[in-house]
């Protein structure tokens, strides 16, 4: 049944300090809302359990993208449109720019935010594998102060995160050390725009003389959380790219994931597609590694 707006409160404190004060005063009571592309869907369906919402859409600090020599810091309420339009993100973090371009459609990209995608913690979210392979670090903030958390430890279970009840995601930092890497991203879904992924992949690597120096692989929609393929990465590092290695990587990736059957796909299909995406990435590494 549709929600009755009379049952919900929405406040707009207007600055970060006031937002954090309210969240500290009444922990676990306030649900932050930025662009609303997830929260409002639940609300309209009458499934939003939080009755008190706090508006963080127009807080300037959360909308900044700051560029430092060693890193880039993306405010949690930056939209996909802002990410796509940012020169350094497009040039140095193409996996993130690509994922932003196939999240929703243009209207949802104008409102949906990177921090919202992280906090919503869907294992199928398109931008999260890119953050995993770029070794993102999150800055979480509360009235108690700031703390930095490696993004790969942030999701603790299905829709569970390391966020405390009085905390907000402040920003997402990416180290600027990947511009020379070969990268590959692909979304497998009914269509790129709007459709939620059956499987999505981001890969990043470096090859010299046919040998893999470093490989980062991550998959979405194949486990309770967006997944970095640690075992497969270890297995690939220092190896020559050969057919037998690609086959072994495919097998290793399939053993690391925990796909399920749901309305969008089956576990069997997801496992096959995940293995194929890993193989495609390694083929690209092999081809471009030769050119390099």
């Amino acid at each position, binding site marked *: 049944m549709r929600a009755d707006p*009379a049952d919900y409160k929405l406040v707009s404190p207007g600055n970060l300090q006031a937002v954090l004060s309210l969240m500290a005063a009444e922990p676990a009571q306030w649900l932050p809302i930025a662009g609303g592309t997830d929260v409002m869907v639940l609300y309209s369906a009458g499934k939003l*359990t939080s009755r008190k919402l706090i508006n963080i859409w127009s807080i300037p600090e959360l909308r900044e993208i700051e560029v430092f020599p060693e890193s880039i810091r993306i405010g949690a309420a930056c939209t996909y449109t802002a990410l796509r339009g940012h020169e350094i993100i497009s040039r140095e973090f193409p996996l993130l720019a690509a994922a932003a371009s196939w999240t929703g459609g243009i209207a949802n990209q104008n409102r949906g935010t990177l921090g919202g995608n992280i906090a919503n913690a869907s294992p199928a979210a398109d931008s999260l594998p890119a953050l995993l392979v770029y070794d993102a670090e999150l800055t979480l903030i509360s009235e108690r102060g700031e703390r930095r958390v490696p993004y790969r430890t942030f999701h603790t279970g299905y829709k569970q995160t390391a966020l405390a009840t009085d905390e907000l995601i402040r920003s997402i930092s990416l180290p600027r050390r990947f511009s020379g890497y070969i990268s590959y991203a692909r979304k497998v879904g009914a269509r790129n725009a709007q459709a939620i992924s059956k499987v999505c992949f981001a890969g990043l690597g470096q090859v010299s003389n046919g040998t893999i120096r470093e490989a980062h692989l991550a998959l979405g929609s194949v486990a309770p959380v967006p997944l970095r393929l640690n075992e497969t990465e270890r297995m690939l590092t220092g190896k020559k790219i050969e057919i037998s290695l690609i086959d072994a990587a495919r097998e290793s990736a399939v053993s690391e994931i925990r796909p399920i059957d749901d309305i969008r796909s089956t576990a069997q299909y997801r496992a096959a597609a995940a293995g194929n995406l890993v193989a495609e990435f390694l083929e690209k590494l092999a081809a471009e590694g030769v050119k390099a």
Partner: protein
Amino acid sequence: MNPSPELSAKCKVFFTVNGEAVKVLTYPMERLLDVLRNELGLTGAKEGCGEGECGSCAVLLDGMLVNSCLIPVAQASRASIVTIEGISAHALIKSLQQAFLECGGAQCGICTPGMILAAVHLLEKKPKPAMAEIREGLSGNLCRCTGYMQIFEAVERAAQSSVAK
């Protein structure tokens, strides 16, 4: 969880719609779509899916294409909103209307306001879009009648005729 009485306070929200200053007394979580349609009588924006998938409730909010079903009205405070009713003065609208007519870009009409606003939003940023850019620009707008090709062709034709002028 029982809502406490304090949760149901209405508030005044000010914004402009199609150039006119508007004040509404409403619940802050009322959807912008419902305020436009029910309070202001602007029924051009339609509710299709109510979850941001179909684009038929699209409006321009401070120049950005958005789905008004996903916007709590309090977030539209002090914004400038343009709906399909207010787009008639736009420089691109004559060529878009003509091209939609000629190409058969409109049938039942439910998606058309959103399609036109998405096309305006695209052409303002990219006056001469490639076909792939047209497809992407309109990818958040679903149409169950045309099969899309006529709409894409209409936007392409409108871009050509606008650039030619």
